[in-house]
C-alpha cells in the first residue's frame, strides 16, 4: 500500500516535471512573427479584426509559457490595403526587424505580392484567406488556412452548384456576375467550371467595376435572361447593393447568392435583415451546433470583449477564428519540431493534422486544405434590425457539406 502510494506520488511528480513550461514565464529572446496587415483602406475591417485575433493568440501563448520557452512577439505594419506596399514591408520585416517567421496579410491581393520575397528566402508562409494564390506560384511552403480545398477555384463554389444540381426538377440555367477584382474573378471562374461540369447552361456571365454604385441595372439585365440560379461574387458594399437591388427588382430565381463577401459581417446582416431570407451563400464558420469545435466559443468570447469600441465586426464569426487558427498551426509546428527551421516546419505542416479552434486542419500538397470545407449557409427567418439574433444558431443554417449540415435547404429562393 505504502509502495503504491509512493509510486503514485512519484509518477505524479514525473508527470508534472514532464509538462511543458505551461504557465511558466517565457524567457529569452522573443520569437518574432512578422506580417503586413490591412489596417486602413478597403480591407481594413477584416484586417483589424484579424489583428485582434492574432493578438489574442499571442497573449494566450505567452500566458501558457511561450513557444520553446521563449515569448512570442508580433511585428506588423499597415499595408493600407495597397498590394504595392506589401513587398517593401516583408523586406523590412526580414532585413531590418529580423523576424523569425512570417505569415501573410489578409486577402488574395495582399498575399500574392509577398510570395516572390518569401519564396526567395525559402520561408514557410501561412496565409490568411487568399483564393488560389498558389495556383500560379506552386510554392511548397505555402499553407492556406481558408478551407477552400485542394482545387480552391472550383471547390469554392462546388457546394452551391451541388446543392442546385440535387434539386428536383433540376434547375437548368445560371447567371454569373462578379466584381472586376482578383478574388471575385477567381470565384467566377470556378463557378463557370462547376456550372459546365454539372450541366447548367450559363445565360449571363459578366463582371462589374468596383466603383459601381447602383446595382439595379445589373440585376434587371440578369432578370431579363430568366436564370434559375444566380451566382454572385462580390465585395461588401456591392453585396449590400446587390441584395437591395434584387429585392427592388423582385428577382425571380430559385437560388441566389454563392460568393458574396460581406453577408458574413454582423453590421451588414443587421442592416439587411429579412432581405437576407432564403439567400444561400458561402461561409466558413457559423454558430450552428454542428460546428461547435473545442475552443471556438472561448476564443469568440475573448474576441467579442476585445472588439468593443474598436469599430470592427462585433461578433467576429467569419475571419477572426481563422486568424487565430493560422497562428495556432504555426505554434503547434514550432512545438512539434522544437525548432524554427523553415524546412522542418514545412515538412511538419505537410505531414500533420492540427487541432485548432476551427476544427481539424490538414493541408494538402499545394498548401490548401486537403479537403474543402467551404460551407453553404442559408439565411432563415431573419428579424429586422436585430444584431443579437446572429450570435446564436438558426439564422444561418448549414446546408453543405453534408458532414456539417444543420438543416435541409429551403428551395426555391422566391416561391
Amino acid at each position, binding site marked *: 500500500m505504502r509502495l503504491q502510494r509512493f509510486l503514485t506520488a512519484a509518477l505524479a511528480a514525473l508527470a508534472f516535471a514532464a509538462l511543458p513550461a505551461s504557465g511558466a514565464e517565457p524567457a529569452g529572446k522573443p520569437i518574432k512573427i512578422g506580417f503586413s496587415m490591412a489596417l486602413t483602406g478597403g480591407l481594413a475591417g477584416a*484586417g483589424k479584426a484579424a489583428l485582434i485575433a492574432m493578438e489574442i493568440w499571442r497573449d494566450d501563448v505567452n500566458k501558457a509559457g511561450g513557444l520553446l520557452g521563449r515569448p512570442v512577439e508580433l511585428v506588423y505594419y499597415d499595408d493600407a490595403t495597397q498590394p504595392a506596399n506589401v513587398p517593401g514591408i516583408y523586406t523590412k520585416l526580414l532585413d531590418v526587424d529580423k523576424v523569425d517567421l512570417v505569415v501573410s496579410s489578409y486577402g488574395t491581393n495582399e498575399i500574392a505580392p509577398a510570395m516572390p520575397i518569401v519564396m526567395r528566402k525559402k520561408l514557410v508562409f501561412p496565409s490568411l484567406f487568399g483564393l488560389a494564390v498558389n495556383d500560379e506560384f506552386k510554392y511548397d511552403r505555402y499553407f492556406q488556412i481558408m478551407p477552400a480545398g485542394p482545387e480552391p477555384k472550383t471547390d469554392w463554389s462546388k457546394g452551391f452548384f451541388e446543392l442546385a444540381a440535387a434539386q428536383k426538377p433540376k434547375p437548368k440555367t445560371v447567371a454569373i456576375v462578379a466584381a472586376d477584382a482578383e478574388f471575385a474573378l477567381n470565384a467566377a471562374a470556378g463557378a463557370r467550371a462547376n456550372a459546365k461540369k454539372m450541366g447548367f447552361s450559363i445565360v449571363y456571365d459578366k463582371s462589374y467595376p468596383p466603383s*459601381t454604385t*447602383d446595382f439595379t441595372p*445589373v440585376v434587371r439585365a440578369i432578370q431579363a435572361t430568366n436564370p434559375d440560379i444566380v451566382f454572385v461574387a462580390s465585395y*461588401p458594399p456591392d453585396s*449590400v447593393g446587390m441584395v*437591395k437591388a434584387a429585392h427592388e427588382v423582385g428577382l425571380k430565381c430559385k437560388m441566389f447568392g454563392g460568393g458574396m463577401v460581406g453577408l458574413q459581417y454582423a453590421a451588414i446582416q443587421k*442592416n439587411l435583415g429579412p432581405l437576407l431570407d432564403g439567400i444561400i451563400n458561402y461561409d466558413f464558420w457559423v454558430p450552428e451546433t454542428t460546428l461547435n469545435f473545442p475552443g471556438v466559443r472561448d476564443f469568440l468570447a475573448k474576441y467579442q470583449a476585445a472588439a468593443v469600441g474598436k469599430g470592427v465586426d462585433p461578433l467576429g464569426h467569419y475571419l477572426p477564428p481563422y486568424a487565430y487558427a493560422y497562428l495556432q498551426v504555426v505554434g503547434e509546428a514550432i512545438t512539434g519540431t522544437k525548432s524554427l527551421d523553415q524546412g522542418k516546419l514545412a515538412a511538419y505542416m505537410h505531414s500533420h493534422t492540427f487541432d485548432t479552434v476551427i476544427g481539424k486542419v490538414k493541408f494538402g500538397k499545394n498548401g490548401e486544405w486537403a479537403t474543402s470545407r467551404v460551407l453553404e449557409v442559408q439565411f432563415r427567418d431573419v428579424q429586422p434590425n436585430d444584431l443579437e439574433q446572429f450570435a446564436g444558431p438558426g439564422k444561418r443554417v448549414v446546408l453543405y457539406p453534408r458532414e456539417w449540415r444543420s438543416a435541409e435547404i429551403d428551395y426555391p429562393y422566391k416561391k
Partner: protein
Amino acid sequence: MLQADLLANAVVAGILLGGFYAATAVGLAIVFGQLDIVNIAHPAFIIVGAYVAWILNSRYGFDPVLAGVAAAPLFFAAGALLYRIYYLAFERTGQESLSGLAFFFGVMFIIEVSLLLAYGVDYRLVQTGYAESKWSLGFVDFPLRMLVPFAVSLALTVGIAQYLSRTFMGRAIQAVAQDRLALQLMGANPVRVKQWAFGLGVATAAVAGALLIVIQPVEPSVGRQFIGRAFAIVVLGGMGSMRGMFVAALILGVVESLVSTFVGPSWSPAVAFGVLALTLAIRPAGLFGR
C-alpha cells in the same frame, strides 16, 4: 431585341443614379468650377457627412437626409476655415497650383485616418423607413433608396443655382470667378467671397454624404471612388454651370445604366468617360460652358 420595360427601367435607374452623382459634384461645381480650387478632399468631406448621418441615425433615430441637412452649417464653417488656411498658406503666396493640390490630398488623408481612429473600419449603414420600398408606374420602378437622393439632389442643385443667380453674395461668387480684380475695385473683399463660396461647397458634402449612406454602406476610404467621377461631371457640365453639372451627371448616370443593362457593367465607366472625352472634343468648354 430591345425590351421596352428593360429600356425604360434602365433610363429611369440612370436618371436616379445621375441625380445622386450630381449631389457629389455640386460642391465641386462651386469650388473647382467657379473658384478654380482643386479640392480633391471633397469626397472625403462627403464621407464625413455620411458618418454624421450614421451617428445621428443610429444613436438618435434621425432620418439620415435630415441629419445631413442639419449638419450642413457646421460643414460650412469647417469649409470656410479650411479655405482661410489654404489662402494664407498657398493662395496668397501664389503657390496654389501644385502645393494646394498636395494640401488637399493631405486633408483627404487626415480626414480618412481621423474617421478610422474615431469610428474604426467596420461598414456603416443606416435604417430608414423608405429605403426598402419602391413606387411603380406601369412597368417602371422607382426604388425610394434612389428616388429620395435624386429628389434631394435636384432640390439642392436648384437651390444653389437660385442662390448664385439671385442673391448679392451669389452674384459676388460668380463675379470673383470671372474677374477678381474688378470685384475688388467695387469694394468687395474677394477673399471673403471665396471663403463663403468654399464653405458653401463643403456644406453640400454633408447632404451628399447623407444620400450616399442611404444608398450604400460606407467606410472611411470609400470616398476615393467618387473623385474622378465628380470632377468629370463638373468639367463635362462646363466648369461652374449648375445646370450643366446636373445634366452632365444625368448623362453619366444614364449612359452607365444603359451600358450596364445592355452591354455589360464592366464597360459602363469606359463608355461614360468616353462620352466625356467626345463631348470635350466637340465642346471644349463643356456642355454649358461659356
